[in-house]
């Protein structure tokens, strides 16, 4: 997995690519915890180039969501491939996360 971190209209954008799995989740967690510590108001995760996510990846995002909520920030996911949306739905997390179609949708309140 590769993480590119950029800014877009004041939001931090995590662009993830490749597999988010047991081996790469700890790196994602580290970055999320860093920006949660800085109390960023909006963190967007771009899934367009994610090929696979396992339970450790989903659990890491759940931790990220909890961390963002603790200071009143928002974490949104966008560009999730259909197959991965199904995994979120199966884990009943499609309603827990704010899932948007595109970056533009995600920056709108």
């Amino acid at each position, binding site marked *: 997995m590769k993480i590119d971190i950029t800014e877009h209209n004041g939001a931090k954008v995590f662009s993830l690519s490749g597999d988010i799995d*047991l*081996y790469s*989740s*700890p790196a994602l*967690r580290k970055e999320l915890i860093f920006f949660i510590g800085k109390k960023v108001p909006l963190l967007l995760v771009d899934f367009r180039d994610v090929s696979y996510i*396992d*339970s*450790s990846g*989903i*659990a*890491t995002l*759940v*931790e990220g969501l909890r961390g963002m909520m603790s200071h009143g920030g928002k974490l949104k996911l966008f560009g999730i491939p259909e197959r991965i949306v*199904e*995994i979120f739905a*199966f*884990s*009943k997390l499609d309603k827990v996360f704010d899932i948007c179609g595109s970056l533009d949708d995600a920056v709108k309140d």
Partner: protein
Amino acid sequence: MSAAMENAIEVTGLRTHYGQREILKGISISIPRGKTSVILGGSGCGKSTLLKHLIGLLRPTEGKIAINGRDIAAMDEEELNGVRRKMGVLFQGAALLNSLTVAENVALPIREHARLNESTVMIMVRMKLDLVGLSGFENFYPSQLSGGMKKRAGLARAIALDPELLFFDEPSAGLDPVTAAGLDDLILKLRNVFGMTIVVVTHELPSVFTIADYVIMLDAGEVIFSGILDDLRNSQNERVRMFLERRPETRTYSPDDYFRFIVGD
């Protein structure tokens, strides 16, 4: 994808013995990737022995067991452990560790194979427990659970690492029909959503007709059928028909054979 890789498992000429007794008589089977395959057969036909070979618990006398193209029968323990990380197994009696809570049992393979933060592990554990309908039972011990709940806890542990290959040994054994149907439903979902390759050893016909994409039937250590459900229903093989129609076996001994048997010759 090559034809070989369309099959997650290829078994060739598998022969195995318990002592002098031959259990599997040189069988060859293929398990298609991303499908649910059921290994069917009566008691003592060798199906549980076959399962133990597929997960690398037993070594064959002869033959190859290729998983993702690599023969596990020729692997050392370390290589085999690498393959096992991609496998989940629900054993017949669930095989939970009684001294650990349900959550600790489910966390066991995660802690064994990965270096994750404890809070990540616990979220994973709760997600898996919720999936099998055991939310809120994290701190229970196996002795405090019913048979069906133990099985579901065993399944949560089997899927803890999101395995590519998931094996079930008699999943419905000892369960009431409603719990058994719930387990079948979960097996279907795991295949559909995660594309897991699922292998179920059973003799429960209702379950076979609910979950199977592909059926392999064993009798006395030999494969007597392999194919899709429609072909199973239409099979004219006498042993297959006996099984499907639940006809009892009438074994006829000659008086001489019977005499030799009871005197122990």
